[in-house]
């Protein structure tokens, strides 16, 4: 069942308040998205744990209601040092 990108973003930010979320609709069908999520809370977590945190934020929708979410997670890097 399709889901709006804004809804995905809202759910992620609700669970990970400092998250910087960008979402692309890959197929234009509201069912295949790519998301990039940056959060300081990911620091020190393995990639698996970071992705699990996002899946948890989406409360079981990934793999069900939301067929495909291509996911990239990162800890924000200071841009000018």
């Amino acid at each position, binding site marked *: 069942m399709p889901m709006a990108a804004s809804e995905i973003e809202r759910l992620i930010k609700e669970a990970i308040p400092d998250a910087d979320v960008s979402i692309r609709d890959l197929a234009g069908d509201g069912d295949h998205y790519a998301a990039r999520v940056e959060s300081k809370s990911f620091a020190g977590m393995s990639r698996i744990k970071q*992705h*699990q945190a996002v899946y948890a934020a989406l409360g079981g929708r*990934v793999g069900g209601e939301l067929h495909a979410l291509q996911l990239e997670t990162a800890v924000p890097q200071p841009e000018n040092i």
Partner: protein
Amino acid sequence: MSAHDRIAELVKNNDIVLFMKGTALFPQCGFSSRAIAILDRLEAKYETVDVLQDPEIRQGIKEYSEWPTIPQLYVRGEFVGGSDIMMEMFESGELQELLAQAA
């Protein structure tokens, strides 16, 4: 045997195993296809399990790893990740190293 035990056996008995939709020759989903392409590119020797042929494994694997999607790669008993993580690790060279250890 429970689905959990069957998965544990598969993971234990195969150094590199990919749970996927379809087969290596005919993947039934773009993400599974991408995972196979990465493993083939690295000339890895791997086993695959087609979850579409086995509803119990299909559901069980998600609980086993606390990971909601398929494909899922396991190397030497450890869950590595899905196709996005495989791609990131492939690009950084980490996956080559990991698979070399398993070979």
